[in-house]
């Protein structure tokens, strides 16, 4: 029990990164992680010791993300109106075409949630196609095309963001 708990707590940083990249708003992201942890601890027997809790936790969190996407959206709009939390943003000097954490989080928001989740699980969390497809509960072929389309979207959005950056720097 204690070992299981420790293993789960060890996954919190990765879960927070994924939640934040999905939702952008820091508080909404931590709410999602908290919901996920609560669900995980209430269903501890579902997870077999000896296997990594990682995919199990990401699956739980993804289901919560899908379930609550509308409710969280309303709340995060209120929160971001009050104060945008950018503690973790890289304090990058203004330079042409250079993108920081905020730009990257913004860019991700412009990608559809399905494609966003796919490129994050594979590209950032390092999951195989089979694992990510399992977490998202979709066929591998579908995941593959979401990864490809998501990357194309990201490329176009980043190009735009860089262009905007340069324009801003020129003004």
């Amino acid at each position, binding site marked *: 029990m204690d070992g299981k*708990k420790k293993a*789960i*707590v*060890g*996954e*919190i*940083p*990765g879960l*927070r*990164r994924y939640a*934040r*990249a999905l939702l952008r708003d820091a508080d909404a992201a*931590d709410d999602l*992680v*908290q919901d996920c*942890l*609560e669900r995980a*601890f*209430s*269903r*501890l*027997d*579902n*997870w*077999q010791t000896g*296997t*990594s809790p*990682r*995919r*199990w936790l990401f*699956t739980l969190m993804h289901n919560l993300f899908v379930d609550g996407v509308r409710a969280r959206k309303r709340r995060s709009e209120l929160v971001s109106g009050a104060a945008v939390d950018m*503690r*973790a*943003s*890289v304090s990058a000097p203004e*330079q042409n075409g*250079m*993108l*920081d*954490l905020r730009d*990257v989080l913004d860019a991700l928001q412009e990608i559809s949630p399905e494609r966003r989740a796919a*490129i*994050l699980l594979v*590209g*950032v*969390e*390092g*999951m*195989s*196609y*089979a*694992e990510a497809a*399992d977490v998202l509960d979709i066929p591998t072929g579908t995941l*593959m095309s979401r*990864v*490809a389309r998501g*990357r194309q979207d*990201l*490329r176009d959005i*980043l190009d735009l963001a860089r262009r905007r950056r340069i324009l801003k720097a020129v003004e």
Partner: protein
Amino acid sequence: MTQRSFDERDIHLALDGELSPEDMAAYEAWLETRADMRALSARYVSDRALLRDTLATLAREEVPQRLQEGAHSASRKTKGARHMPLRRLAVAAVMLVAAGAAAGFWAGQQGFGGGETLAALDVVGEAVAAHQVYAAEKLHVVEVGASERSHLVGWLSNRVGTRLVAPDLQAEGFDLMGGRLLPSGGKAAAQFMYEDPSGERVSLYVAHCVKGETTGFRLFEDEGGRAFYWQEEGFAYTVAGAISEKRLLEIANVTYRQLLAGR
């Protein structure tokens, strides 16, 4: 063997380690003939590095108290459980993913022991290309910074499969910035990046190569890229940088001596 044909889709499969070693070799050959696809592949690699590097700061943040507390209170109200779907169980039993795999290109020597090994000269070409791509970065030059030097060296040694040393080039005016893991053929390669006060950058790139005779330094030059390389025991070592030949050779010498001493 029937050669399968490749298209843009395969760039993603290769990038995500989803090609078999055989397909990977054929893919590399195909990529060699397609400058447009090479550019696209490089672009996706750099976008992914941007995502990873910027989001990495989030995973390093301290976990807020409320999440830790949430875990405690939730564990008290633990109740009996439903059963995990069989399919998940089966897959979970097979897959074991270390958190470190988040860094994962296709898995170095462990995952793909039979991965394709490149000729030394091909490795040098890759080393120079990797230098040009990452030395040009402003914010995301390295994957792991010099502040985590021992972790960096241990991790890369482990993944590449040889004992590496991040050379100390301070006497030559270069400070270690950090390093990153890169794909090379079907295997893993390591890059250490250095910078001098004027912003000049040099890198050391270590990758598997076809075992040949041990050689002395050789000079490689290609469209603005310059490198000295040598090979030893199935590994190619490349020191690349857009600095004078003389200065680069000095750095290559120091690097060679330190790698030898560190072994």
